[in-house]
């Protein structure tokens, strides 16, 4: 069970009080350059997800409280919420190990 605190109104609750909006910071390629959207970029936008085992950045909504969306960092193994930040804020710099971790793995296997 999740224990969530809304950073907007302070309401506390579990997953029945909040709504999960999935992975955060996905940007739609066509919004930046509608004439140059590669098949790869469109596929990534629609289907490819980070799915880390560990810290994950997500969007959540305070469904039974103020109704506002917010961002959160949550551990997908322990299910703990580690931090919250505003829905208009971009990803915090380095607290998430995942993108970095996957890059190192990639380098390792490429070197072989």
């Amino acid at each position, binding site marked *: 069970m999740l224990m969530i605190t809304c950073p907007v109104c302070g309401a506390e609750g579990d997953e029945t009080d909040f709504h999960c909006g999935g992975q955060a910071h996905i940007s739609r390629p066509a919004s930046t350059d509608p004439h140059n959207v590669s098949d790869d970029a469109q596929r990534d936008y629609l289907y490819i*997800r980070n799915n880390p085992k560990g810290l994950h950045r*997500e969007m959540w909504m305070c469904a039974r409280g103020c109704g506002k969306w917010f961002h959160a960092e949550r551990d997908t193994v322990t*299910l703990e919420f580690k931090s919250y930040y505003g829905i208009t804020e971009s990803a915090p710099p380095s607290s998430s190990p995942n993108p970095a971790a996957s890059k190192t793995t990639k380098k390792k296997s490429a070197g072989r």
Partner: protein
Amino acid sequence: MKRYSIFSLARNAANYHKDWGPVWRSPEPKAEYDAVIVGAGGHGLATAYYLAKNHNMTNIAVLEKGWLGGGNTGRNTTIIRSNYLQDESMAIYELARSLYENLSQELNYNVMFSPRGVLMLCQTEHELRAFKRTSHANRLAGTEARMIDRAEVKRLCPIINDRDDCRYPILGAYYQPRGGTARHDAIAWGYARGADAMGVDIIQNCEVVGIDQNAGRITGVRTSRGEIKTTKLAVVVAGSTTQLMDMAGVRMPIESVSLQALVSEPIKPVIDVVVMANTVHGYMSQSDKGELVIGGGADPYNNFSQRGSFPAVEHTVTALVETFPIISRLRMLRQWGGTVDMTGDRSPIISMTDIGGLFVNCGWGTGGFKAIPGSGWAFADTIANDRPHPIAAPFSLNRYMIGHSIDESVAAAVAH
């Protein structure tokens, strides 16, 4: 392999069942194999079995980080049916269902396939129309299933609430008479025993921690028990797919979430069909031990904890108490969860990749037990021949690029 028969049973009974012996070997990993399969769930083991049986590839290994069948295969509620909406799905699920029919004989192992019939209730006008559409699609494809009315639902399942004064009265059901259940563990064990007998090394407690490649081709894997060389690597790890494929630098269209199930205390037989109530998110059948086997929807957030949450239990049980009022005073005996691998179109991935020799089979999500024999059959053929088997071809990773998704999100409204 010691064959099981009425005579072996009698012989062993005379010895007080002391001499059965281990059913498969526990070999040390060799330095090199012709093919390595990661993940000894049903899909990985069936793949190994058919690689050996249909393609004579016996110098192969299945690597499992825990114990074989300890993943979702050993945690599922075993519903088997093939009445999916899309042509591509009908082909693979019906191949699997038809292989289930003779699997006990094929494996010389009782997998307890029980084609007791699966009822998918229609509890809203919309659901009724959607299932009618599916039933027409299935009839065109020759899949045997039909729409039935409320009276027939009540006849097949007398404990069901057929009254009008509930929130979602039953309007009918979509019925597949040859759908049913099988024993989850027996599927893993039967395929493991069969594969082992043909020389396949099944190596448990062996976690893959790295994937090696050279010039765009697979060269081997690094494991908790040392390095193993191979030129063909098949990743079949369900909820861990993102992590495994990441080792090869391939990003996947997968999200891992928790799906849970529970059983009641055992009672006398009360229900001899499988009933799925998609609108209210619950399904139920009864095991041979008498427990009511109950499942519902997946938790709606990424989750690697391998356990379920209390709100989901509450939600499922609330729905089923209205559907089957007699269960309201039963106690829950056990509850557990598995980490399932969800794709955007709720259809699986059986695919080659841009890396030579790297194959992946995943995305079965909440409903892959029913597909194990067909998936193993088609995937083995794909690996052996280095080209997609015709039934597997539509399920390639490429479909997300060309926009040919196989949308089964309606058919799979609840997890099963």
